[in-house]
């Protein structure tokens, strides 16, 4: 990798870490109900919402009620997104005249967007009306992100409080997250995006006369270019900030209207990790020990850098099929060395303005979190370049992770790490003064095992059924990797894909929709159960026997536990796909 590449990656982490503390501190103020600089503007709106909804903002919920209202609220989102797609032909804001989306695709997309997965079985520019994009998809970009953050804050309260049943009020957590955190950040970010060339309009697609006519695959002459536009910037901003990832266009953030310049690319990548990183600091503040937040952030960062190194290395290699094709035509490929102005490495599926470095960095960030947006096509990555994103999803998306969901997943790994360490030395495991006991361990085991189960069983079913096999577009082990990646993306609520897979079929739409549901709510509910149980416990004072959880030793231990669990669960499945493909190459 060139010096330029190292500088860009370094700059990325520097800016990210500079923003984590101020944002984290701000979010802590929001969740603790303290005044902040936006209070004068937003507080009246917030109070009006509570008034109209007839809720008492001071009233708290136990974990069962919190979980019930979370599910009810998310189900409403499902109905809205499903209904908008089915009836969009008869609704306004449809200048391109999109027809109704099929039932199975609508089901899949609705599940995908309420679960913060944002898997796209459809192609946005040719499927969704502006109304569906805005009132269906953009809304869920906000609300699914807020749901994850609400559940996280409930869990943090479980650690921070003692001797109570209550873990907060879901309604106020949702409203505060949306009004104080997501909307202001998105508003600023979307204007910056437009200033760089991301489109934002309600006009119908633009038509331009081509400078040179071309031929379509039926041999007809094409003289015009139809250029789709739409309210894009407003959706892209929250798509990145809320670890959603569902693009306006099929090519997602590889599309020049979603990501036109290196600056937008940098900011969109920053937005992926921004809130998940900031929440670590928020956690530290809310549990009254900032070192705990920094320790978790350190573990996340170390794992991220390890995987980033693999992806960057792999993608800076030359694609053997490109060399072979050129040789067959009697040509050689430049780009074996990194001369000035010459991309060096695997450029298939990548954009010139981002180059290899930023494509690999994005791929790592988007799969470490549950974002799933792409600025290059993962399907065309080198085998090990594709392995790293896949394995990051398999880690449970706890490396920064989805907004809220990443940190609550990470805290489950912390519980397991503390428990295993406790077993080794024969002490009662405890974390942040709370004893880790049978219920916590049962729920933590569910959180670890459910994704493994649904990903592997889903993949297994797909590879033995004709409808599943039909999805693969590449031959050999790579085709299997496409299927494994799809189910990993469903189960992990990621949303990225080895996009050659033909997944807009009743089989994948239905199976995917169901798996996304389990991957989201069958994690969130055990998390809330842990929260409720922890909140009811007394605080154990720190003693000589307490395992400190902010030391480098514990950080290393936590990283080991995460990597070992993922390796044990997924190594056989990965061996059949990317690993064997690498060996064949």
């Amino acid at each position: 990798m060139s010096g330029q590449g190292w500088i860009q990656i370094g700059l990325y982490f520097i800016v990210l870490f500079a923003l984590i503390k101020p944002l984290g501190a701000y979010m802590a103020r929001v969740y603790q109900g303290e005044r902040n600089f936006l209070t004068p503007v937003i507080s009246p709106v917030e109070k009006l919402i509570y008034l109209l909804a007839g809720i008492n903002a001071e009233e708290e919920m136990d974990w069962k009620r919190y979980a019930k209202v979370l599910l009810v609220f998310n189900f409403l989102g499902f109905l809205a997104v499903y209904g908008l797609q089915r009836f969009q032909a008869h609704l306004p804001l449809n200048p391109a005249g999109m027809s109704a989306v099929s039932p199975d695709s609508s089901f899949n997309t609705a599940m995908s967007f309420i679960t913060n997965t944002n898997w796209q079985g459809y192609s946005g520019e040719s499927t969704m009306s502006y109304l569906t994009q805005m009132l269906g998809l953009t809304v869920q970009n906000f609300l699914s992100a807020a749901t994850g953050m609400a559940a996280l804050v409930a869990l943090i309260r479980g650690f921070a409080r003692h001797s109570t049943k209550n873990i907060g009020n879901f309604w106020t957590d949702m409203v505060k997250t949306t009004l104080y955190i997501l909307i202001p950040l998105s508003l600023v970010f979307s204007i910056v995006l437009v200033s760089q060339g991301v489109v934002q309009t309600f006009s119908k697609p633009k038509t331009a006369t081509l400078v040179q006519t071309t031929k379509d695959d039926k041999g007809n002459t094409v003289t015009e270019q139809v250029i789709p536009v739409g309210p894009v910037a407003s959706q892209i901003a929250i798509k990145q900030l809320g670890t959603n990832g569902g693009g306006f266009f099929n090519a997602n953030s590889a599309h020049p209207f979603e990501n036109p310049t290196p600056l937008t690319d940098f900011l969109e990548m920053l937005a992926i990790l921004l809130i998940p990183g900031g929440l670590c600091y928020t956690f530290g503040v809310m549990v009254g020990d900032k070192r705990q937040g920094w320790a978790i952030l350190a573990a996340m960062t170390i794992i991220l850098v390890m995987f980033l190194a693999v992806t960057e290395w792999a993608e800076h290699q030359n694609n053997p099929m490109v060399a072979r094709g050129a040789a067959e035509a009697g040509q050689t490929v430049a780009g074996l060395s990194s001369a000035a102005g010459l991309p060096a490495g695997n450029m298939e599926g990548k954009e010139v303005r981002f180059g290899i470095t930023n494509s690999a960095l994005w791929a790592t960030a988007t799969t470490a979190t549950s974002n799933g947006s792409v600025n290059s096509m993962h399907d065309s990555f080198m085998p090990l370049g594709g392995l790293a994103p896949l394995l990051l999803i398999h880690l449970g998306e706890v490396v920064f992770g989805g907004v809220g969901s990443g940190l609550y997943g990470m805290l489950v790994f912390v519980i397991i790490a503390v428990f295993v360490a406790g077993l080794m030395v024969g002490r009662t495991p405890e974390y942040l003064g709370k004893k880790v006991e049978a219920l916590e361990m049962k729920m933590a085991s569910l959180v670890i095992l459910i994704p493994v189960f649904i990903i592997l069983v889903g993949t297994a079913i797909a590879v033995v059924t004709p409808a599943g096999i039909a999805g693969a577009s590449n031959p050999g082990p790579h085709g299997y990797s496409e299927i494994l990646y799809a189910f990993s993306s469903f189960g992990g609520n990621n949303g990225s894909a080895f996009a050659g897979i033909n997944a807009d079929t009743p089989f994948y739409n239905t199976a995917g929709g169901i798996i996304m549901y389990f991957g989201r709510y069958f994690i969130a509910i055990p998390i809330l159960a842990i929260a409720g149980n922890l909140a009811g416990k007394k605080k154990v004072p720190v003693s000589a026997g307490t395992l400190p959880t902010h030391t480098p030793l514990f950080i290393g231990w936590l990283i080991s536990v995460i990597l070992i669990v993922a390796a044990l669960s997924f190594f056989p499945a990965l061996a059949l796909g990317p690993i064997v493909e690498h060996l064949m190459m």
Partner: protein
Amino acid sequence: MIDMLKPAVIIFTLLSILTGIIYPLVVTGIAQVAFPSKANGSIVVKDGRAVGSELIGQSFTDPKYFWGRPSATTGFPDNAMASGGSNLGPTNPALADAVKARAAALIAADPGNRLPVPVDLLTASGSGLDPHISPAAAMYQAGRVARLRGLSEDKVKELISRNTEERWLGLLGEERVNVLKLNLELDTIGR
């Protein structure tokens, strides 16, 4: 259940209006006033006619134009209504076949050019609409374009460097040449 449903429906409706209607409308309002050209697709107008977008690639196959990135969009190359990549894996022989055809087309257009081919001219972009090529890919084609247009190679190289976009602040992204803008400028001076 009913006691949950009422606040759920009301809060869902209000937050939907805020995030799904008011927020995009506010962004659109600001965007249309502050950045009207960019918000509407950075459309390039020549002789009063829209000839494309600065940000959306077009397919060039005529040897007297600079060629852009290969595009794997369905229907025809650089079909803006069907963005996407080839999604061909690194061990898929179909990728070698596609590269072979591209390399052969380049050599057929410029039989004397035995320089190594920059990799971005042989590989399909992620969006299928990549508006840029690398400076190396433009230089590789400079001799051909100069010859067919009766221009000096130095003149063409000067045009390339004028249309080269730098890294942001010299740091972010990669250097790149906007193919549509370069070709439009060529048309204004050459044959």
